[in-house]
């Protein structure tokens, strides 16, 4: 190989007359050979490693979840979430103030922050307290806060964080807020995830509901589809959708690190196992391997996965959203924040899984929680902001922007945009549940996500998946 590029000099000739070989044709051959070799090696290796698809009788069409056709994406998806990893915005009242500036750390950026901005503007105007908003993802905070707490400092005065983190660290590092907010002012159970005994270590802002399957009204109208009222109708709907031309699978599975799949799973548990099973799994009094829990998976979710009714997991806010909105799938299980991600929210409809008669079902509600660290130097101002964010006034401004559901009681339904009003109404008559994996948190959560990703592509591994989930349950 090396010798081939040595010059064409004849024996005895001077090395000074050596000319390196050159030529475009050689370069082209090299590039082509490189592409062919790498692709063939990759392909052959992976071919022999690939798992053969599970042989099942597909419920929905041809089991298209393991196949995919050519792509046609819609370009009319709205902006979605974080535009940059960190940004800071300062809010000051429109008059001179001597109040100290406090720092609020929250997860929102981009369009989500635009919807939050009016809330902070109103706060600074009405109280005269300037606020610096700094965006930090909760995954980042999870890494930074323990070190800060160890040195008795905090990066902000009010911090939005997961309820599991607040609960785990509240007694040591957070201010107890029983004197500032009261259970009776919120949806029942909203503050439970941040309580240690009867002590409350955080406030709850608005939240997002994970109500069920979203669809485009125009799609349902065009294909004469109706919202199911029984599980048999739901299955029949999936079969009908799978026969529509251009449909890949009836339901698209959104995924990122695994959490959208956990939301779907929780919805099945809360509907077919009931609110009590969901709560028992959350607090660890029931095992994932129990017969009745397994039955929810084996009888309801697994047949749909094995039958090709769900797509394989696709990146939730780009590929999955675009494919669903573009008509490649008819249904998308997602939280209420989806209303802020699509171009035309008035075309959205949503239905929950039809519950069996006699079961008290629940809807998972993911509240946005926040706390005041003990190490704040502006405790008075921070508690005023905490109280405001948890109040009916603060939350009313937020829900008006769309995509949020209030946890504070007394926010009138008329203040919600139309589509959110529908979501808020779905919560009538059902038990409000805390997000299971957010509440437990820790390595249980990441393991739960990974195991569900596995279940989605290998539904025949149900028992090992449930055992693996149970293995990471924290000791109660």
């Amino acid at each position, binding site marked *: 190989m*090396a010798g*081939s590029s040595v010059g064409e000099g004849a024996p005895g000739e001077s090395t000074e007359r050596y000319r390196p070989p050159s030529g475009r044709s050689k*370069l082209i051959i090299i590039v082509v050979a490189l592409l062919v070799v790498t692709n063939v090696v990759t392909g052959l290796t*992976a071919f022999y490693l690939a798992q053969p698809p599970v042989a099942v009788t597909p419920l929905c069409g041809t089991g298209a979840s393991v196949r*995919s056709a050519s792509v046609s994406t819609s370009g009319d998806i709205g902006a979605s979430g974080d535009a940059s990893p960190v940004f800071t915005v300062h809010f000051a009242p429109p008059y001179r103030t001597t109040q100290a500036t406090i720092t609020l750390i929250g997860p929102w950026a981009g369009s989500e922050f635009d919807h939050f901005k009016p809330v902070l503007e109103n706060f600074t105007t009405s109280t005269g307290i300037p606020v610096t908003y700094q965006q930090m993802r909760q995954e980042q905070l999870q890494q930074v806060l323990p070190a800060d707490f160890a040195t008795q400092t905090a990066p902000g005065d009010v911090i939005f964080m997961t309820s599991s*983190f607040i609960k785990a660290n509240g007694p040591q590092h957070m201010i107890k807020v029983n004197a500032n907010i009261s259970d009776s002012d919120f949806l029942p159970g909203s503050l439970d995830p941040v309580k240690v005994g009867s002590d409350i270590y955080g406030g709850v802002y608005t939240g997002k509901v994970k109500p069920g399957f979203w669809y485009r009204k125009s799609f349902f109208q065009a294909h004469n589809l109706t919202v199911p009222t029984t599980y048999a109708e739901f299955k029949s709907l999936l079969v009908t959708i799978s026969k529509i031309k251009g449909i890949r699978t009836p339901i698209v599975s959104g995924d990122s690190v695994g959490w959208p799949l956990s939301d779907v799973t929780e919805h099945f548990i809360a509907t077919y196992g009931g609110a009590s099973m969901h709560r028992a799994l959350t607090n660890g009094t029931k095992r994932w391997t129990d017969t009745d829990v397994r039955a929810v998976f084996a009888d309801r979710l697994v047949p749909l996965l094995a039958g090709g009714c769900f797509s394989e997991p696709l990146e939730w806010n780009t590929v999955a959203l675009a494919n669903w909105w573009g008509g490649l799938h008819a249904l998308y299980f997602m939280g209420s924040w989806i209303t802020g991600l699509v171009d035309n929210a008035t075309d959205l409809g949503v239905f929950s899984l039809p519950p069996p008669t006699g079961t008290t079902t629940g809807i998972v509600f993911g509240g946005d929680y926040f706390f005041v660290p003990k190490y704040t130097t502006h405790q008075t101002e921070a508690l005023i902001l905490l109280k405001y964010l948890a109040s009916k006034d603060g939350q009313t401004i937020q829900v008006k922007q769309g995509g949020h559901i209030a946890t504070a009681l007394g926010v009138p339904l008329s203040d919600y945009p139309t589509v959110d009003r529908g979501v808020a109404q779905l919560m009538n008559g059902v038990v409000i549940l805390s997000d299971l994996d957010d509440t437990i948190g820790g390595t249980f959560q*990441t393991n739960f996500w*990974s195991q569900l990703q596995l279940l989605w592509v290998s539904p025949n591994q149900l028992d090992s998946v449930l055992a693996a989930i149970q293995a990471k349950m924290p000791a109660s």
Partner: protein
Amino acid sequence: MRRLRIEGVTGLLRKLRDRVSGALRGRGSPRARKAGLRIAFFTPALLLIMLFVAYPVLTTIGVSFFDANGRFVGLGNYQQVLGSPDTINLNGFPKPPPYGTLINNAVWIAIHLPLSMFLGLWLALVLREVRGSSWVKTAIFIGMVTPLIIGGIMMLYIYDGSIGVVPRFFDAIGIHSLGVGWLQRPTTLLFGLIFGSVWLWTGFSMIVYSAGLTTIPKEYWEAAKIDGTPTFRTFTQITFPLLKPMTIVVFTMSILYELKIFDLVYGATNPQGGVGGAADVLALQMFREAFVQLPADYGTAAAVATFLSLLTLTATVMTIRYMVKR
């Protein structure tokens, strides 16, 4: 006693100061001046190393002997880590992944090291003295300057079952079992990431070998050509032996990269190593114990860190000693 000790330390420091200042002013015997200068130049570096390397390393090792509640557990954390199915999970083998972090790191080394090394060497050889090759080399090297976390996110899309170029390629050529999302399946996840990483890392070995090739005098190859030595023999007898220093560098750096791989896997999957934990690696396991676990288990995280450091150190020392001896 305490007073004596303080006086002893003070005396030593005074002596050191006198030596250093004497050396800097050109006083004292040549030997004393030399010693003084050595101390003067050596001390700042030593202090920095003590502060930023030795202290954290020793603290990490120390922490690894305590549990999450601060109780001394001896080697308990190491036992826990090595006995955990997260680290080694071969029960029922042969079976589909996950196999555990230690096995996955070994798979990384077994596949990624030879592929990236020999692909880089091959590229360096074929692109040598070819007009326009600098453009190709630059294109290949772009992978090296891409942050690995971005590389991980790129993998999400490259292997996506719906829009990914790799699944679409296999679907197009009729291999439908690979026309699916690679990162969504435990059997293809790890290999997808390794192949993707080869693409990103090959630029490194290619550049190092290219630099090495420029140091070999052309006369060697010309002499071989004149003697009628076959091309392959020229390579095995002249080119490759003369590239030994480069091979040591590439080999060592690649092993270090493969043992401490984190960001690519984290970017492409999740803190658990993706579907069923099939792509989990030691660095991710360490991260999880320290920053995901509630409450954080720094003892276990430190045990993983120490274990990882030992592996890295052993691999590096053995490689260098072996290569240098030969």
